[in-house]
């Protein structure tokens, strides 16, 4: 069967993408967001282009050419303007995860050689706290401040000044040449404590993903932005393709109000992680049960599926009351970041919400494969996008092995880490994803597991167990051995981080501590306060015996985790 792709223009760089959007859709609304007094603010594509050019011009005027500029804040129009302004002719953007703790932010700012930080109003205090530890930072800029902050430049004022410079004829930013092979972004892989790596991406990498994603997916209308824009998934698979297609993107203002905001903005498409899909699926069935309509829903789905088999799709009519609870227009959800339970995907599709499950990794900017309405297979993560190739390394008898990727979307390398970069590529230049899987005859990719011990949570966050284990061993002197694991998988509903520990009883006894479990729970609670919420240990298990070891005295993780799961 011949592949069918959407025909797309291959744009040279992100600057061309912004210019194209400003020209093709000047008056169309590009972004909607909820303001501080709950008013809806709207920004057109031409306003975006003007603001990007003005802000970029002003940053160059302030002598920031070549600077590494970190961006810290919630999803917003100002965040997008900051990112686009920096990458399109100023320097290197360093998007930071807003969930990080202060000490981790300091590490990443050092690691990325950040010169300037742009933050939202809610992170001004954080920036003030960490500034003394970041002497390299020369300037701080605040987006949408609600009050005056001495020492901080105000982004809106800089944009106004940039506009004046443009009116006076300054063209250095607008006309600057973009080297599409050069690093324009450093994005950190999974967080904290020295193990996260700075992935260097170029315009070529990012635009390859925009082209690849849009070859398979045709977004339009209104979309809803709920995932952190500091992640490549949201930025490169949503914000930037949205610019190409003239999509109106509406920003969610708080995770507390996702469903309310879907109802407010009434999007037809969104990008999510499995966590949200599980919640939507559960809420549909809970609502049906609560109203005594569970049987009706089951029957309706059965009938609708039969009709679909003969080409009659009445889902939007049959299930209108359900779809109306999610704004009424939502019909497509692109899902990535973690494994998705195929039953959830099917359950949502049954009622008219098409789920397009995909696969990506930050090092591939991030998209590698995605299912589409025309081309999809249940259980797969879709077809490999046309800008890259996938190869399975050392496949076993079932064709399963490590997924390798080569193509324009693959990163330049890890920032200031030539050894890490070298280790992540094969000798002939294929990127090692560390994920295991296989390809079927039609180039659909299937993920079967991880080569390393990484825990992938359904919210798309990754937890390196060794990182938490080292922390426990360092902070709790009475813990002799520890294995951190997730007793459930992202595909079920019992997903959390657990620590299985073997304690030094003698150490505790000599200090008069007999309630080992109580002491451990107390200490873990304190330790959790220094961790981002997704890395927190929710359960502690005590082993009465030492953990099984290999001949080289390494803990045999697999049997220990199996025992831990039994006891959890």
């Amino acid at each position: 069967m011949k592949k069918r792709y959407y025909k797309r223009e291959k744009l040279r760089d992100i600057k061309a993408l912004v210019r194209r959007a400003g020209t093709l859709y000047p008056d169309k609304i590009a972004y909607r967001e909820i303001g501080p007094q709950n008013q809806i603010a709207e920004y057109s594509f031409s306003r975006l282009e003007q603001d990007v050019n003005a802000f970029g011009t002003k940053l160059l005027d302030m002598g920031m050419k070549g600077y590494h500029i970190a961006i810290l804040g919630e999803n917003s129009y100002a965040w997008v303007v900051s990112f686009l302004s920096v990458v399109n002719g100023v320097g290197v953007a360093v998007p930071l995860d807003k969930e990080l703790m202060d000490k981790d932010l300091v590490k990443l700012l050092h690691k990325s050689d950040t010169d300037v930080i742009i933050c939202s109003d809610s992170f001004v205090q954080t920036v003030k706290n960490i500034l003394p530890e970041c002497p390299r930072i020369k300037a701080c800029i605040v987006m949408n401040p609600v009050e005056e902050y001495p020492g901080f430049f105000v982004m809106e004022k800089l944009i106004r000044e940039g506009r004046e410079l443009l009116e006076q004829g300054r063209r250095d930013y607008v006309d600057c040449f973009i080297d599409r092979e050069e690093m324009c972004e450093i994005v950190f892989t999974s967080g904290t404590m020295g193990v996260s790596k700075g992935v260097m991406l170029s315009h070529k990498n990012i635009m390859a993903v925009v082209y690849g994603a849009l070859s398979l997916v045709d977004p339009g209308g209104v979309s809803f932005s709920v995932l952190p824009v500091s992640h490549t998934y949201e930025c490169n698979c949503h914000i930037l393709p949205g610019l190409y297609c003239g999509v109106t993107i509406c920003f969610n203002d708080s995770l507390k109000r996702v469903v309310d905001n879907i109802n407010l903005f009434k999007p037809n498409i969104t990008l999510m992680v499995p966590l949200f899909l599980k919640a939507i699926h559960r809420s549909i069935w809970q609502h049906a049960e609560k109203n005594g309509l569970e049987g009706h829903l089951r029957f309706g789905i059965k009938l609708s599926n039969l009709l679909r088999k003969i080409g009659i799709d009445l889902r939007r009519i049959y299930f209108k009351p359900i779809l109306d609870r999610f704004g009424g227009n939502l019909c497509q959800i692109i899902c990535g970041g973690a494994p998705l339970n195929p039953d959830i995907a099917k359950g949502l599709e049954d009622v008219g919400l098409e789920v397009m499950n995909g696969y990506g990794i930050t090092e591939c900017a991030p998209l590698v494969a995605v299912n589409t309405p025309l081309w999809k297979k249940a259980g797969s993560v879709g077809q490999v996008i046309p800008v890259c190739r996938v190869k399975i390394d050392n496949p076993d008898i079932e064709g399963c092995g490590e997924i390798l990727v080569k193509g324009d979307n693959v990163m330049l390398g890890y920032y200031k880490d030539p050894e890490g970069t070298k280790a992540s590529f094969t000798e002939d230049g294929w990127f090692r994803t560390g994920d295991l899987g296989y390809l079927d005859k039609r180039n659909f990719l299937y993920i079967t597991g991880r080569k390393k011990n990484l825990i992938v949570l359904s919210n798309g966050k990754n937890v390196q167990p060794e990182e938490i284990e080292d922390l426990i061993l360092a902070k709790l002197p009475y813990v002799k051995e520890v294995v951190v694991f997730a007793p459930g998988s992202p595909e079920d509903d019992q997903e959390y981080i657990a620590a299985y520990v073997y304690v030094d009883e003698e150490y505790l006894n000599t200090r008069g501590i007999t309630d080992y479990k109580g002491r451990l729970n107390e200490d873990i609670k304190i330790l959790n306060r220094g961790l981002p919420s997704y890395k927190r240990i929710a359960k502690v298990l005590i082993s009465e015996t030492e953990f099984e070891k290999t001949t080289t005295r390494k803990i045999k993780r697999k049997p220990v985790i199996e025992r831990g799961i039994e006891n959890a």
Partner: protein
Amino acid sequence: MLKFIIRTIQEFVEVNEDEITEDTHFISDLHLTSYDIVSIVGKLESSLGIEIPDDEIRNLETIGDLKKYLEEKGM
């Protein structure tokens, strides 16, 4: 207050009131996700007319933590 919290949680997870104590852990005992916890807080905010900042949600691990937090807010 405990009963009010439990009733709100019951909108997200099927759980018997008798099985919940102040030590009940949102994630390991009730199997709630981080998104569920944030949504529960959102519901409580609109019911009680208060605001719980995101960075304070991080410290709420058990039913008891939430109860204590709300009591300290004068609820």
